[in-house]
């Protein structure tokens, strides 16, 4: 008897209500009409989001629902845009509790705490549970979310998530929580599992360090001011050379910074979290990033070719699979950076194909292209099991059943 059933549906119907209805009906058909515990929904910006959720609820009633808007949708069928994807999960062995925190951009840390307390107020704390995060992608410093989680749930709690998107408008994202649409919130989903069920994460980018490191000598929030006491942008331009500098800030996607984890980098083999420049100010010589680079951190320049990026997705899949220690994978949630999407261009489908190559073509997948990814560098190694905030990275969360 299979314990976990997951089905993924997709619709690109023009009408929002109809699209929601079609996608969820599709998803339910794939779990043979069983009643799901939870629905995970990712939609393109173009929808009337209230109508979209109303369309879903016209089929499923008040079954809990989490998700939000994207910069591109991911489903079992591959990559799509202007669509809505829905995953329905049915299992008597899983316990899913969703929670929400408001006003993220005012105080990320407080908002995270509000969300976790919302969940814990309705459920017992289980250190072996997993937390999936869907924060407002324009809501602020991702490291503050991690601070909130680590303070309340501990450093080794399993966390995976992605900053919600808005089809690259970079102005505002929406969060889906049950039947309602929110603007500046963090939605969380706590999944507790019974014995015989394994979960895992895979986090890889495919980006490699090029050249020696340098030190961040001045930064403020998400803005980097100096590397090695030189204006940050000036040094970056020196690295890039004249012709490539003309492609700023777009070229930042190809050459993101990696913050080196000093304690974990042995034999010149750096482990790093990626930070991608979003905007540059030529007058002040500063670079704005998606999250902070703390003063004093060692930074290296990184890059990856398209096939290395695709290889990164395959490596992430292998890492996630290894966490299952032989359990049969049942479904995957995938968070991949919008920057990867932009660099991959028309090879975008290959990234999802790489994941399927590892888990099999039939594995239900849902996910989206994100404005920032959250997950541990390697769950299997105690020193790397703490969740970090990344850019240009793919984060996979997978759940599987041990064979009877």
């Amino acid at each position, binding site marked *: 008897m299979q314990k976990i059933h997951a089905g993924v549906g997709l619709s*690109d*119907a*023009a*009408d*929002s209500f*109809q699209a929601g209805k079609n996608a969820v009906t599709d998803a339910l058909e794939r779990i043979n009409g069983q009643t799901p515990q939870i629905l995970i929904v990712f939609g393109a910006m173009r929808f*009337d989001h209230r109508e979209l959720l109303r369309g879903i609820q016209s089929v499923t009633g008040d079954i809990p629902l989490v998700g939000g808007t994207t910069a591109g949708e991911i489903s079992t069928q591959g990559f799509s*845009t*202007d669509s809505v994807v829905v995953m329905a999960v049915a299992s008597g062995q899983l316990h899913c509790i969703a929670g929400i925190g408001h006003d993220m951009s005012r105080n990320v840390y407080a908002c995270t705490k509000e969300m976790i307390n919302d969940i814990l107020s309705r459920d017992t704390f289980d250190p072996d549970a997993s937390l999936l995060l869907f924060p407002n992608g324009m809501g602020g410093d991702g490291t503050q979310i991690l601070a909130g989680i680590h303070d309340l749930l501990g450093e080794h709690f399993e966390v995976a998530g992605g900053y919600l998107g808005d089809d*690259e*408008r970079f*102005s*505002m994202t929406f969060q889906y929580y049950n039947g309602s649409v929110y*603007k500046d919130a963090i939605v969380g989903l706590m999944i507790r599992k019974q014995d015989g069920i394994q979960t895992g994460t895979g986090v890889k980018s495919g980006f490699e360090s*090029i*050249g*020696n490191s*340098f030190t961040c000598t001045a930064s403020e929030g998400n803005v980097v001011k100096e590397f*090695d006491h030189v204006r940050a942008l000036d*040094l970056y331009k*020196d*690295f*890039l*050379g004249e012709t*490539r500098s003309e492609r700023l800030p777009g070229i930042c996607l*190809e*050459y993101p910074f990696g913050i080196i984890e000093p304690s974990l980098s042995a034999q010149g083999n750096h482990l790093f979290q990626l930070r991608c420049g979003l905007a540059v100010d030529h007058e002040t010589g500063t670079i704005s990033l998606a999250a902070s680079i703390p003063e004093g951190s060692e930074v290296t*320049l990184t*890059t990856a*070719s*398209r*096939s290395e990026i695709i290889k990164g997705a395959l490596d992430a899949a292998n890492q996630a699979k290894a966490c299952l220690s032989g359990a049969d994978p049942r479904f995957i949630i995938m968070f991949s950076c919008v920057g990867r999407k932009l660099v991959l*261009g*028309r*090879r975008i489908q290959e990234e999802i194909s790489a994941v399927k190559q590892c888990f099999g073509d039939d594995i239900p997948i849902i996910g989206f292209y994100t404005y920032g990814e959250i997950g541990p560098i390697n769950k299997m190694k105690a020193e790397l099991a703490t969740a970090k905030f990344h850019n240009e990275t793919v984060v996979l969360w997978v759940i599987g059943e041990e064979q009877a």
Partner: protein
Amino acid sequence: MNTKDIQALRIRLNELEQEVLQNRRIKDELLEKQNALREQNVKLIKKSIELSDFQRQLEDKNYELELSRTELEKALANLSESENTLSTILANSPDIIIAVDQRHNVIYFNRTFPGNNKPLDIGKHLCAYIINDNHDLYHETIDSVFQSGSPTVLESEFNLPDNDTIFLESRLVPCIIDDKVSSVVMISSDITERKKIEQELKNTLTDLERFNRIMVGREIRNIELKTELEQLRAKLLANGSDASISTNHNNRTTLASNLTDPLATDLSDWLCPIDKASLTAPDNPADDYLFRSRQRAALLNLIEDANLARNQLLETNIKLEESVRRTEEMAKAANEATKAKSQFLANMSHEIRTPMNGVIGMSDILLETRLDEEQKRYVETIIGSGKNLLRIINDVLDFSKIEANHLELEHYEFNLLELLEDVCGLLGFEAYDKNLELILVTAKNLPFHVKGDPARINQILVNLVGNAIKFTHEGEIILSADLQKETESHVVIRFSVRDTGIGIPAHRISSIFEPFIQADGSTIRKYGGTGLGLAISNHIANKMGDGITVKSNLGKGSVFYLDVLLEKAAPASGPVPYCAAPPPGIRILVISSNAAASKAMKQLLENEQCVCTVASTFHHAATAIKNHKFDIVLVDIQNDNLLADQIPESMDELPLIILASTGKSDEIRNRYGNKRFRLILKPIHRKELFSALAIAAATGTPRNDRHTRTATKIRERPAEVDNGYRILLVEDSKVNQQVASAMLKQMGIAADIAENGFEALHKLRANHYDLVLMDCQMPQMDGYETTKRIRSNSEQSLNHGIRIVAMTAHAMKEDRQKCIDAGMDDYLAKPIRKTDFEHIINKYLKS
């Protein structure tokens, strides 16, 4: 302290100073090294980046290669598949197909010759498979085809062991590779059946011939008999009976001997019983008389029969000849009518296209010059109107096509929003000129990427909106598109055109779709038009769906509905072009005195998740601003009501966007010159409005574009940009000369002009040119003739092979062939569009 101590201290001090200096030196050196190291580091990273860039390019190239290799493999697979199909077809062909090489070895076969039981093998000699009788014949014929290289036909007879005979007709065709016959293919058909039929036909012909001979004999016999009988009768009448009997007896003998003539067997058969009776009773005078009278009657009858039949034959023949002649005449007339018709169409399109060439061409050039938004809009309207004029010709052509049931719909991908905005753009000027509002409303769930026949939908909507403008004197016209039905693959879109015009009386509604009829017989004079538009539109609409339906309220207005079934198009793959959108959640105050327009605007903005408040006057707006917070103010100027008021000062702090029709823009600039605002011309292009909203929301301050309208002079590229090419333009029309040379001038190319063919030939004898642009229709010597002469060796042109590109207003397909046949290299249809023109010129100048 003693001197010794002081001395010691001094020395120590000195030492310390030395040490400090030493340290400083070391520190400086260290710093220098550190700097060098840093520089080294930057250089290293830079090098790494270059390397990784290079690697990336390499990988992309590889990927492209891989892609094209996959494509190639696919193509190869297709090829072998089609090869398979081909060999299946060949194998199943009822003909025997055998190909042999020069040594008469078999290189392909689909089956063997009849009567041959040996399995045929590729590579074996043909001899093994041909029964002796035909052996030499086939070898000789194959050899002759190898030698002559021309196909031939061979008939042969195969006598099979079971006494059957099969006739084969073999067509022998050479395969020529590099001017040499490499192999011969024999395609042999079994013509036994045909032979049989031929034989039967031959037999029938012999029978017929025999019958004919008999008939001819009978005719002669008839004539002879007639003569004899006449003589007989004359004698009977003139002499006594004795004499007559003896004569008659003699005659009878002759007659009898004649009747035994084998040629006249049937005649003799017919006369026999009487004859025989007369021969057995020769001496009975009564009987003899009876015999003679009967014989005479019989003969007379026979003659009459023959005469009748002959006359009938003659008459039929004459009739046949007559009808053949008439058929020929009719065919000739029909041919001439077809020619006349296509000539008429060609002439008509020429007559209209030539001036349009001028209008559209010059407008194209004008667009290239520095114009402000408004002027640009005017020029685009000119081009639009020109295209519309061409559409009228098409109307007439369409109608004849509909009458002949030849109208066909196209099916390709297009953007529905662009189509609708095009329709509004084309007719907006007309509407605003009449002080009417033209409002576009699209349902928010409307799919924009669809497949269908956009040109035809455009045609119908232009007709409906045009009519609505024509029959409306105040108020507005609303063009809307709604999603009526949706399946996984298709959508039904309902277009509606609603006006506040004069309406249609109920009893007239059914007749408005008939050709040449408008709702009221008298309106045709007042409102003009061909009267064909609605009839054509309805015909097309019927082909695309359920036709056009109308609801009307006399004196209040009409609504025309059009339901069209369209296929959904797949969302474009690859990167989607960036589209500005107003940030969701911004608060917009819309001021508009037209209820329908403000409703449409509110819906449009709310679809984009903006918060929208509507006010109908500046006064209301000022109140709203006092009570609520707004991010942007949008003023839609319909008529003079709003213009009469001043914009309240409380709006000065907010970004202001004014929407107005082209005709009002100057007035608005004068009136609100003291304000800062962004002006958007109506009919609105959604992209333009959205980007203005996005900019206003982002910057928070309105962009003042009061001063953008400065340079209006036509900007010409400096004439000294001469890239050395020389083109001869052969064209009789002054307008076309100007258009083409202006386009060439913009490209920096010098052109000489020849007014006709003679002048062109003259110039080509004297000067060297890189390219000739040749008008086809010219007085004295046309373009075809001129081209033939240039190509001819008897002409003393400097370059017989010069590239010649035809320019012709003849839009018909066969015209292109006519140009190529005359020796021209390419073809440009008038009216000439700048892009086509540049493309062609560059193509031939660079080659």
